[in-house]
């Protein structure tokens, strides 16, 4: 497995090997799926759209619909205007979408298609909408694309009536519907009146009913996005994925926002709950207190199995930063913390956590890749690896227990229904971590040391 990866680390300036990020449009497509009755539309050649749908489908084991402008070579010369016009007509005619959310690819971006003026030239049927976001694949990553599409929805749709509606706008970040569901549960328990944008619950975790619905029950309603201009505050969960949208609402409507770390683990979930409590001016209900107490109880009970273990974590920045904080809370050592998404803020935030928890000799790196992570591990090993499915090759090559967390997870079922966020998500994560470590102990220990009770 990964036999040609050398132990000797040499600097690479140009060659990316086994990336830990993908390109913008898939993030935009995911964000668009989180709007009710919305058709994500990829303005480029059709290969991108197929790849992005495929990837989301493989992660969620659920349909991910999207249309494409299907550029031919001619469109590259003359621009993709007529492709987008034809597409819009067909999508409204045949698929009856309420809204088309256009994103771009490296092709249409390099050509320089002016999407707003193309959209302006389209006769959009009464009561229907078209919005867009520029998502050049050669900038940032899929997380950037997610942030850009959320911003696009706000730019096009949000409006202010001048009458505040007392709602909180929650931008949940690039997370699974299981996480969004858990955040919504906590928001409701905290009596916060909110709009979550995007909200993929009920879309990419739709139930089996025997009847396929192209536009499932879930997704943020267009009227709720419109009303965001009257919101009282925005909560941006994870700066990389959610700041841009929150910032847009502030710019357009002077709605203040607060950026929080993804609520993974004790401290970040505490911050999330405190923020909700401040907003709703409600007490934290016992139900939440109980969950928190249960989590801490489990942590105390099981600490001998995870304490001091060295972990390598990779994936998307907001999730990785939050996972790092949780493993630090557990008393584990996040030896390597890596994201493929570029952005110095990642290293700053992770290094601050290293300092806060007083760990030394740990590495944080942005814009890195899985080959580099593998080389670090070859030089100085870890006890646990956490990240998306692509990590399984390293886990096998180096025989490291592996916890799947983040995006994409292509080789397991159920995961997207289950949260990592909140106290409950932390319990689940801890169960996964303990399971991986304890299975390993059971596998590797001498027969005389094989324990019935652990």
């Amino acid at each position, binding site marked *: 497995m*990964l*036999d*040609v990866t*050398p132990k000797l680390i*040499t600097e690479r*300036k*140009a*060659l*990316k*090997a*086994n*990336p830990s*990020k*993908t390109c913008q*449009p*898939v993030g935009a497509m995911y964000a668009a799926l989180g709007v009710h009755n919305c058709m994500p*539309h990829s303005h*480029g*050649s*059709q*290969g*991108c759209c*197929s*790849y992005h749908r495929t*990837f989301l*489908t*493989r992660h969620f*084991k659920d*349909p991910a*619909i999207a*249309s*494409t402008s*299907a*550029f*031919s*070579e*001619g*469109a590259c010369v003359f621009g993709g205007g007529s492709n*987008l016009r034809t*597409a*819009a007509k*067909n*999508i409204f*005619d*045949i*698929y009856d979408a309420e809204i088309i959310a256009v994103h771009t*690819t*490296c092709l249409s*971006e*390099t*050509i320089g298609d002016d999407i707003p003026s193309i959209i302006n030239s389209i006769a959009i049927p009464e009561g229907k909408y078209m919005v867009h976001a520029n998502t050049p694949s*050669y*900038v940032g*990553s899929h997380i950037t694309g997610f942030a850009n599409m959320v911003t696009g929805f706000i730019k096009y749709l949000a409006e202010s009536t001048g009458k505040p509606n007392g709602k909180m706008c929650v931008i949940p970040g690039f997370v699974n519907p299981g996480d969004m569901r858990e955040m919504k549960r906590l928001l409701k328990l905290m009596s916060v009146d909110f709009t979550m944008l995007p909200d993929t619950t009920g879309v990419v975790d739709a139930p*089996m009913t025997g*009847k*396929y619905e*192209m536009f499932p029950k879930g997704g943020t309603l267009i009227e709720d996005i419109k009303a965001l201009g009257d919101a009282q505050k925005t909560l941006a969960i994870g700066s990389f994925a959610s700041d841009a949208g929150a910032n847009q609402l502030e710019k357009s409507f002077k709605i203040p926002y607060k950026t929080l770390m993804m609520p993974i683990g004790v401290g970040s979930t505490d911050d999330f709950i405190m923020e909700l409590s401040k907003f709703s001016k409600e007490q934290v209900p016992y139900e939440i207190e109980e969950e928190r107490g249960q989590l801490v109880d489990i942590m105390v009970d099981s600490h001998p199995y995870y304490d001091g273990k060295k972990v390598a974590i990779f994936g998307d920045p907001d999730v990785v930063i939050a996972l790092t904080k949780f493993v630090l809370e557990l008393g584990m050592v996040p030896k390597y913390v890596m994201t493929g998404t570029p952005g110095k803020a990642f290293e700053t935030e992770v290094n601050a956590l290293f300092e806060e928890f007083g760990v030394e000799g740990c590495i944080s790196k942005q814009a890195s890749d899985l*080959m580099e992570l593998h080389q670090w591990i070859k030089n100085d090993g870890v006890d646990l690896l956490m990240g998306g499915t692509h990590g399984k*090759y390293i886990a096998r090559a180096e025989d490291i227990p592996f916890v799947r967390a983040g995006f994409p997870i292509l080789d397991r079922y159920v995961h997207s229904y289950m949260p990592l966020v909140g106290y409950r998500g932390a319990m689940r994560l801890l169960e996964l971590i303990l399971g991986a470590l304890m299975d390993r102990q059971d596998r590797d220990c001498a027969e005389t040391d094989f324990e019935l009770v652990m």
Partner: protein
Amino acid sequence: MSKINTIDGVLDKYSAKVYKNRKKHMLEIVEDETKEIAANSRTIPGMLTHRGCCYAGCKGVVLGPLKDALIITHGPIGCGYYSWGTRRSKGESFEGGKNFLEYCFSTDLQDTDIVFGGEKKLKQAIKEAVEIFHPETILICSTCPVGLIGDDLPAVALEAKALYGIEVLSFACEGYKGVSQSAGHHIANNSIIKNLIGTSDYKPKQHSVNILGEYNIGGDGFEIGRILKSIGYEIISIMTGDGSIDEIRRAHTADLNLVQCHRSINYIAEMMNIQYGTSWMKVNFIGVESTISTLRDVAKFFNDPALTARTEEVIADELENISPEIAGYKEKLTGKKAALYVGGSRAHHYQMLLNDFGVETVLAAFEFAHRDDYEGRVVIPNIVSDADLKNIEVLTVEKIEDKFKIVKSQEEIEAFRREVKSFEEYEGMMKDMNKGAIVVDDLNHYETEEFIKKLKPDVFFTGIKDKFIIQKGGVLSRQLHSYDYSGPYAGFRGAVNFGRDLTMGLYTPAWSFTVAPWKKESILEGTFGGEQ
């Protein structure tokens, strides 16, 4: 309801313009008549096509499986990332050889590269790849923006080749070229025939073949190889499943080319015939009966009594091994109806395997096949090339005297042609289909849903994008690209695997829970408001 009405019923919803276009891409099979179908034309925007792009056809399909070639995707990160490990072309590492199948290499272009050009970064990436991995071959694949910004990849490849003394080839497979994956096949074929085949020498030790258009998905190629080797053939190269550059270099030394996927590799088959005198035969290792008749046809070509006898022995042995299981599955599958929508080849081949189990095909569709794959190669002279395809290079090759191999005399070849209809011929999918079945080209999401309602198949074989759409509607969908992570499906053992997977899918208890009990019967006792 007649099937003609079925098609009209589907088309009805379309605007006049779309109606006119899509009508040409679907037909009903009628007896004694091969109808013309429109294929390999531009994708209509906004229809929810399943098609991918030229890059996918070139890098993802043809080049990707070459295990010892280090492939650098020159572009932003996505294209390389999505084609990393996702097509299940298996490859076994060989002694001392390098295996790059688990890797994804990309220049990960940034906005500054788009502005100032990406050549410098590509050169640096090649340098780093050489220094770290010491590959013998580097292949560079272009993506959309590369064509637009004008990076000169052939020049970079030539320079690198001279600099490092290794093979470096570039492929201008930008995603917007052509109308589908198909253009990418052609581009990959052109380079393989120009730069690789015939560049090293070798003398086969026994009856020798190349397997063309076999990508070893889920180990299909391993199973085909197992059968051929047990009969006594020497396999010189496989293009390209579990393939290696060295094997391809000596492909011209084989006696016969066996073409499994006609669409993706017929260019090489044709050109090798002209350049090296290598005859080709359309084979089909999918399905028990197909595999048997393929093996017999291949044996006939070599016309060696020992080989023929051994062929029959192997067939008998294999049948003895699989027959009980095949019969068991057949009992559970006979009478079921299937629809197939796969890329450019399997929608045909798998009908033969379904026949083995008594399953009827009611609809078959290709994403990106050409008219010859539907109607047979006989129509090739009548195919009109349109503007979207004109920039895909068509190579003209000539006989290479010193490497030209004569296995059979011209007379023998002509006689053989009369005897075996798949010799240097492909009769297309439609000829093998039953009257009344429906054929669709570039089937889209809406049409899929409509045809399911009208034809009510028990299983819809297709890809990952619509698998869960179909299953949400209560119909089993098995993937015929990835085999749902199972396989092999080729050859004798593959047929058993396929029968097992299909039976399991149709009979899994979960289907019976689709409707909740409270939807089936009322549990509320009492009266509705106002009712007495």
